[in-house]
């Protein structure tokens, strides 16, 4: 590519963008709107998944040992549980600690008074965390084997909560993907049409170029640049809006509902946009390239 040709490509693409000013602005705005909605969906889905993961962490399995077990037995069972695949953490809860928790929970110190030490009816237990709630079934199966061997007496899991969380997670993910796919299709259609109009208004020009022996790539470049500029600007604008808007929204939610912080946290805006920004820009560029290459193909067949 010669410098004079590069200058020519840019000159032509800018003149194309200016000649179809209305279409240029309209399609840039449409692409921008699509990417804005996509970003919004992404922020929602990503945060909901992030929060679900936080909630999932709180859902564990509690496993109780038979009464009158020795410290050695406790240690062995703990090791056994830790050896199960997908188990990330096993926390030992002594009968004393369990009693304290119970007192706090029931707010009934007097009723439970006198059950300390030797008289404690509670047994040794474990709080088991697993990597993903989807694997709860497999872990439970292993725990039941330990139970059959007498290592454990009772296993409590949060089966129904788990199912609900998994369902919510699936729905959100599918919904997010559907929205994003629809918007991708809309953006492609819009940009293809804009470039088609631009190509159409320069039909004679392309025709002459073909006759005097311009290469297909020479003819394509201005349209590709045109498409990329539309796509790139159409992607950049919503990012400039969405980033500060997201950061502001999160801090506002924290301000208005300080309690929320105790339950779940939002993703940092930098975390979200370090993925969303490059993705949008690349998407915009691809959109422009695909749009222009498909709309010009027909006219190169002379």
């Amino acid at each position, binding site marked *: 590519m010669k410098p004079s040709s590069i200058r020519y490509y840019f000159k032509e693409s800018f003149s194309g963008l200016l000649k179809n000013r209305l279409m240029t602005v309209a399609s840039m705005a449409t692409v921008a709107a699509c990417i804005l909605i996509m970003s919004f969906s992404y922020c929602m889905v990503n945060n909901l998944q992030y929060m679900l993961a936080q909630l999932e962490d709180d859902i564990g399995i509690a496993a109780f040992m038979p009464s009158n077990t020795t410290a050695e037995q406790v240690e062995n069972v703990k090791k056994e549980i830790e050896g199960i695949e997908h188990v990330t953490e096993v926390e030992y809860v002594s009968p004393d600690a369990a009693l304290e928790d119970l007192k706090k929970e029931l707010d009934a110190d007097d009723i439970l008074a006198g059950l300390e030490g030797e008289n404690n009816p509670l047994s040794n237990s474990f709080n088991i965390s697993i990597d993903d709630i989807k694997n709860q079934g497999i872990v439970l199966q292993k725990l039941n084997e330990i139970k059959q061997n007498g290592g454990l007496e009772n296993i409590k899991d949060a089966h129904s909560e788990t199912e609900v969380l998994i369902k919510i997670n699936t729905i959100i993910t599918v919904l997010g993907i559907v929205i994003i796919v629809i918007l991708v299709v809309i953006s492609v259609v819009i940009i293809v049409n804009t470039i088609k109009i631009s190509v159409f208004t320069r039909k004679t020009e392309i025709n*002459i*170029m073909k*006759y005097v*022996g311009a290469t*297909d790539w*020479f003819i394509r470049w201005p349209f590709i640049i045109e498409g990329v500029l539309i796509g790139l600007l159409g992607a950049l604008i919503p990012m400039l809006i969405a980033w500060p808007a997201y950061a502001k929204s999160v801090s506002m939610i924290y301000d208005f509902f300080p309690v929320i912080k105790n339950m779940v946290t939002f993703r940092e805006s930098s975390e979200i946009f370090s993925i969303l920004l490059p993705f949008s820009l690349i998407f915009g560029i691809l959109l422009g390239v695909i749009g222009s290459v498909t709309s010009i193909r027909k006219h190169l067949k002379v």
Partner: protein
Amino acid sequence: MINIEHVSKVYPNGSAGVRDISIHIEKGEFVFFVGSSGSGKSTLIKLLLKELDPTEGKITINNVVTNDLPREKVPYLRRNLGVVFQDFRLLPNKTVYENVAFAMQVIEAPSKQIRRNVPAVLSLVGLAKKSRSYPNQLSGGEQQRTALARAIVNNPPILICDEPTGNLDPSTAWDIMDLLEDINRRGTTVVMATHAKDIVDMMQKRVVTLRRGQVIRDIQKGGYGDETEFN
């Protein structure tokens, strides 16, 4: 220079454009394609430009068999062929100078060469004074001379014209013919499809007559021939 061997073209809809045509054209020749409307003149010209591919036969231009030329090589074939059409095909938003320079820009000619060649070719076709005019400020003859300048500015060895005088009045048509003869005298092979009987008769060049897609007459230094035989 141009060799057409047993070439046939059947359009996708089944109509026959040309049938079993063989024509050999030497470097520096001036050849008319004549024949009634629908006889296949434009089809033949499109085959030479590789705008169409023959359904049968072989076309060789400048020792290159164009039939099976890969798509990406076609532009380089076309750089050997200047083209002029009946309808000028100028870009309305470009000046005469820009229209001609355009043909050099798009094949990435050095700008120094563009600045040298364009004025030279414009004065050759007698448009030096009109270089800043836009096509809609020109007469038909001037527009066609601009198109001619554009066709020859890259110095193609072959010039192909499809009814270049079709939209022009007789005296303007003669201006164009004088130019074509001039260009031919400088060594360019000229192929021209036409209906203009008086022009063909006056020029006394080689005449290839087509009828229903077939060559029925091919004579050196001839006239338009008897039109009653055309149909």
